[in-house]
Structures are given as structure tokens and as C-alpha cells.
């Protein structure tokens, strides 16, 4: 018997949701390639998304929502009206954006990326936080199966929201080696890369913990005067403080705060980096940690939230609040190319578990399990 599964992508605004865009598209294409005989799919996305990813619209019957999705209120309304009407007769709908619309007719699967809005307060604006605080618990109760990107978030959902643990499953995101990677020479010229690179790509949100890394790097630079700290990623609420801290340590010459740069450049920076550092205080998955592994780069990650689980044997773990420990770990690695190479190789091997094919196979099983829970 063939069941039809709708995939709600109205939340996915092209160019604005960060790494989950690439990973969602890769998983959808992998799901198409997998072609499970018992499942049929229908995609519901904004016209802008369909235009940005014609390969998805070619692979699946796609209903185009005539809005951008940029306005949260508009999207919430669209999901409860336009989407609810079109999905009423489907066997299952997957809402991969963290919330389930309040009006829905078909049974659903929900992906919860993290519970940060419930656990921490600094990252989100107060309106958005209040909205999510009200919506996430209701959404989780409504879903037949809740998908989380890590065992860590799975535990938070079970413990924090009191959900039946049997309905919550962990499926890591799919992360593939990017197709477009900018050449080394080009990057060296464009970003003045003239020494071994410690890379941390992240928006300057407070929980990304740039300040600890900058403090640590002041000690690293004393021992490795040629080393560079390279910080791509958009501006968050801590941008000015991060810039000020770089000034205070007189590191303006050794830290490259690049802001938002093209994805191919970020990929190129991974492939030339000596070490990737992920000192984040909260990660539901930790995309930069997996990207470091995909590129075969040594990884130092915070010892909390999902990072230890994702880094596994390929990463060194450091207390995210202990700047001296970060300095010691980074300096030791910069001085030991053999160990960096071994960690990088371990990462490459480990990154196999995170390919989009694996993610797609898991999703197909999640759908079957949700369908059987009628």
C-alpha cells in the first residue's frame, strides 16, 4: 500500500535559515533518489523556494505558496489555511520547521531542532520567544512522531516537555561535502590568510560564545604569532562586543571577522583550516562540527549540549567557559600537525554517518512508523 506524505517547507525562506537549508534540500534529493516503493511525497513550499531550488520542484510534485515566508505571522496564517486545505487528505505531513500549525487535518511528524527558546533567553526576541514557548509544547503533543537532530535534544524534549519517549526519535541532519569550494589562493588573497587558521563560522549571537574564543586566542597568539582566528558568519546581537574584545586584546591584525560570506568561501576556509573551534554554549546539532569532519579538519568543541555526541572520537572536548583550557587545546594542536592529521582523518571517517543518504533512509522509516501509529 502506498501512502502519501506531505512535506511542509513554508518555513524555509531561501538564504535566511542558515545551514538547515542546504541540509534539508540534500535530504529531500536523497529521499527522491532512495525512492521507497511504499511512500509518495508532495512538497509544499514558497514560490521563492521553488525558484531557488528547481531540482526539488522537479523531483517532487510541488505546491507553490505565493508568498515569501519572511513574515512569521503571514507564514503561520498560511500554514493554517492554504497548507491545511491542501494537506487535508494526505496520510501524513512532515513539519520540519519546529512547529505544527494550529489548524491541521492530517496526522503529522514534527522536527524540533532545539529547545533553546525554552532553555535560554538571550538569543531570541521576547515576542518570538513567547510565541515559541506557547507553540512548541502544543506542537510536540500534536505530532505522532517528533524528530530531533541529536540524542541531546531528544532527551531535552522528553524531560522538558513530558512527551512519551517512544514518540521522540533522533535523526542526525545530512551533511555532504559541498560541491562548490573556493580555491585556496583566492581565499588567501581575498581574506589576507597568511598563517595557520583557527576557524569558527557562526553568527555573533551570545550563545555562540565568541568572547571565550577571542580571549583564548590572545594566549594562543602569544605562542603562535603567525596563527589567525577566522570568524565568518552574520552579525548577531553581540557583534560590537566581539569587535571590542578583539581590540582590547590588540588582535585586530590576527583575527579576521569576515561577516557573512558566500557558502563556497566558507567551504574553502574549512578545507584550508588547521583547526575548527566550536565553543558554542548551545547546539542542538552543531553543524560546524560535522562540517569540520566532512572536510577532514581537526576539531575542538565545547563539552556540553549536542557537541560531544556529534564530535565523538574525532574531536577534543573543552569546557566552553574555560578560556585557558581553550588556549591550551588550540596551542597544543597548532604545534602538532601529526595529531591534527589523525583527528582530521578520524573526522572524515565519522562524517560518513552524517551523509544525506543516511538521513533520507532514516526519514523514510520515521514516516512508516508514524503511519503505523494510526
Amino acid at each position, binding site marked *: 500500500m502506498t501512502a502519501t506524505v506531505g512535506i511542509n517547507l513554508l518555513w524555509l525562506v531561501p538564504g535566511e535559515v542558515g545551514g538547515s537549508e542546504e541540509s534539508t534540500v540534500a535530504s529531500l534529493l536523497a529521499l527522491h533518489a532512495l525512492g*521507497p516503493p511504499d511512500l509518495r511525497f508532495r512538497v509544499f513550499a514558497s514560490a521563492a523556494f521553488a525558484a531557488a531550488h528547481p531540482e526539488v520542484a522537479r523531483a517532487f510534485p510541488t505546491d507553490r505558496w505565493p508568498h515569501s515566508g519572511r513574515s512569521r505571522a503571514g507564514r503561520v496564517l498560511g500554514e493554517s489555511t492554504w497548507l491545511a486545505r491542501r494537506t487535508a487528505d494526505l496520510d501524513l505531513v512532515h513539519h520540519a520547521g519546529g512547529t505544527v500549525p494550529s489548524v491541521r487535518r492530517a496526522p503529522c511528524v514534527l522536527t524540533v531542532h532545539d529547545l533553546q527558546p525554552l532553555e535560554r533567553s538571550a538569543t531570541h526576541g521576547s515576542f518570538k520567544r513567547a510565541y515559541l514557548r506557547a507553540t512548541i509544547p502544543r506542537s510536540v503533543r500534536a505530532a505522532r512522531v517528533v524528530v530531533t537532530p541529536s*540524542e541531546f535534544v531528544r532527551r531535552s524534549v522528553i524531560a522538558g516537555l513530558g512527551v512519551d519517549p*517512544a514518540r521522540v*526519535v533522533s535523526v542526525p541532519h545530512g551533511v555532504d561535502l559541498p560541491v562548490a569550494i573556493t580555491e585556496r589562493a583566492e581565499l588567501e588573497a581575498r581574506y589576507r590568510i597568511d598563517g595557520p587558521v583557527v576557524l569558527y563560522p557562526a553568527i555573533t549571537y551570545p550563545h555562540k560564545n565568541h568572547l571565550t574564543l577571542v580571549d583564548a586566542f590572545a594566549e594562543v597568539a602569544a605562542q603562535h604569532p603567525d596563527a589567525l582566528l577566522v570568524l565568518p558568519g552574520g552579525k548577531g546581537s553581540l557583534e560590537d562586543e566581539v569587535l571590542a574584545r578583539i581590540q582590547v586584546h590588540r588582535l585586530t591584525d590576527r583575527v579576521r571577522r569576515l561577516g557573512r560570506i558566500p557558502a563556497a568561501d566558507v567551504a574553502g576556509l574549512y578545507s584550508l583550516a588547521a583547526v575548527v573551534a566550536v565553543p558554542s554554549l548551545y547546539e542542538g546539532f552543531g553543524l560546524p562540527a560535522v562540517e569540520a569532519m566532512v572536510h577532514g579538519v581537526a576539531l575542538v568543541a565545547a563539552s556540553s549540549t549536542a557537541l560531544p555526541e556529534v564530535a565523538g572520537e574525532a574531536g577534543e572536548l573543552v*569546557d566552553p567557559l574555560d578560556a585557558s583550557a581553550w588556549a591550551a587545546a588550540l596551542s597544543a594542536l597548532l604545534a602538532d600537525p601529526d*595529531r591534527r592529521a589523525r583527528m582530521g582523518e578520524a573526522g572524515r*571517517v565519522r562524517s560518513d554517518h552524517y551523509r544525506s543518504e543516511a538521513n533520507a533512509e532514516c526519514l523514510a*522509516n520515521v514516516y512508516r512508523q508514524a503511519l503505523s*501509529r494510526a
Partner: protein
Amino acid sequence: MPGGSARATLDTIAALEARGEVEQIGVSAWHRQPAPAEWQPVIDVRALPLSRLALYDAWQRLRRPVVERATGAVDVVHATAHVASASKAPMVATVHDLHFLHEPSHFTARGISVFSRFLAIVRDEAAVVVCPSQATRADCVAAGIDAARVRVTPWGTAMEPVGETEVARVRSVHDLRRPFVLFAGTVEPRKNLARLLEAYRRLGDVEAELVLVGPDGWGPDLPDEGVRRLGFVPAADLHALYAAAAVVAYPSLREGFGLPVLEAMAQGAVVVTSATTATAEVAGVAALLVDPLDVDAIAGALQRALADPDLATGLRTAARARSATFTWSRTADSMAAAYAAAVGSA
């Protein structure tokens, strides 16, 4: 007989030996007779001149004698299970589980005292702590061990899928003509068999019978009515039984890892297991997860697994694929990285 953690330790040692790079020397207590061949590590083992209990006591109370008296200088000492070997070298300690903190009534007073002492030494002294699952890692961090020192090195399986003739053979040897739900493991309260039996009974009118495999452990007697008990079976038979079963049920209350789940998955079994302990990590989405305290939920999962062929086929394929990623060579790589981290921290 040693259990899953002993088997896993021996298989890790063998995989590390095959991998090279790490030179291993075993240290044991003085034994009157050698262990059976199946339970001997593949590496050179030196004995310290104390009986097992005396050695464990001396190690944990006095932190002597140091292993170097038997081995000469070493770079790392690895306390593989429940006893903190004494050494001058940095310690890597395996914590398989911390069940004793959750269910002290399942342990003797002496057991609790040994485990508590081990945990205290590990917390204060271990450079690196390795656990087989995120569940055990979370227990370690909750017990006060510094999170930056705790790593997860999942166990593996080297099991080959058995062929159809083997499946036919065990069916005939054990006279299993109907579809069956299999439980394999020692009969003890932690394995939650009473609820599994009750769930099976609530299935009502099903074609499948319930088959229990494994030695008697301890705990209240189970009713035999409507249940086939095969007792201990050889490993080869067990593997074929996993492959033959309609469903393998393992709704254990608490596991440090849950090797039977992985081994059943390696045979492409449809597994129903617990959502609340390490088995959920091993299973991923390649099995049906249940709240092990909820008898109706266990019954419901058995029912779905027996009645929905698309679901069962998807689970069998996913189980084979997922189990193939759990290799002992991956465990060995992970363990070698833990040793390197311990050396680096010295």
C-alpha cells in the same frame, strides 16, 4: 559467566591489536586456573601476586600495587570495568553503566560499596572516562565527572548475517513452526520480562508465540504458561533465532549499551526496545521504541510489528544498515583517540 561488558572489552582489545599503533599489556589478579579460551584476551597478560578480591580491594582502598610492578613502564592505564587499577600513568576508565545509582535494590551492599569507590576514584583521578552510550555519559556528568573528560565509544558487532539454511535448522531443532516473538537475555528484573509477558498476553488472538532464550538469573519466578523457554543456547543458534524471529523484544529498563539489540539488528530483525535507556541510541529509527513501563505500549508495538509488513520490511533493511556502522574497528579507533587524549593531558 561474564556478560556483555566483558565480551565488549575482549572484542575491543582484539580490534585494537589488529589496528596496531597501540601496544597493549593486560594485568590480572593471580588465578589458580586460566580462564576458558573463549574468555582470554588476545594479548599478553601479566598477573600481580594477589587473588582477585584482594587485588581489587588493595587497588581501590590503598591505590596499590601499581600495575607497573607487573608490566614495567606504561603510558596509560585503562581500567576496563568497575575497578580502578592503580598506576603512575594517566588513567582511562570505562564506565559501562551507573545502574547502581538508579536501582540500588538490585545490588548487594558490597557491590554498591565497590562501585561507589570506583566512581569516586574515577571522578578524582581519571584523565579520560569512556562510556558506551550517551545515556551513560549523561549519568557520569550528573554524578559529577567533568564533562570535558567523558567520551562515548560505542560498542560494535562483527556478526555475519546467517543464511536461510541456518534459520531452517534452528527452527527445526527448537521445533519453532509458528511465527515467534523472541526475548534473549538473562532473566533478571532489569530486563523487564514480567511486563513483556503481560504485553504478550494482551495481544490476545495472535498467531505468534513468545520464545525466551537465556540462562536463569535471579528475581521472582515467571509464569510459564503460554511461553516457550529454550534456556541457554549456543551463540550460533541465538544468531539464527534473531534472524528467524518475527519480532525481537528487548524492553529493558536500563542498559549501558544494549548489545543484544545491536546483534538482533545485525540479523535484520524487527526490534521492539526501550525508549528510555541506551537501547534508544543503538536502535535509532531502525527499531520500534516503547516506554518499558507501559504494558499497553509494548503490546501496541508488538502488534504493529506483527501486522504491518511495510513497516517490518523498512525496519529490517534499516536495522542491517545501521548495525553495519557499529564496528569494533570504529570502537578501537575511538579508544585509541581516548588513550591519545589521556597521554596529551599528562
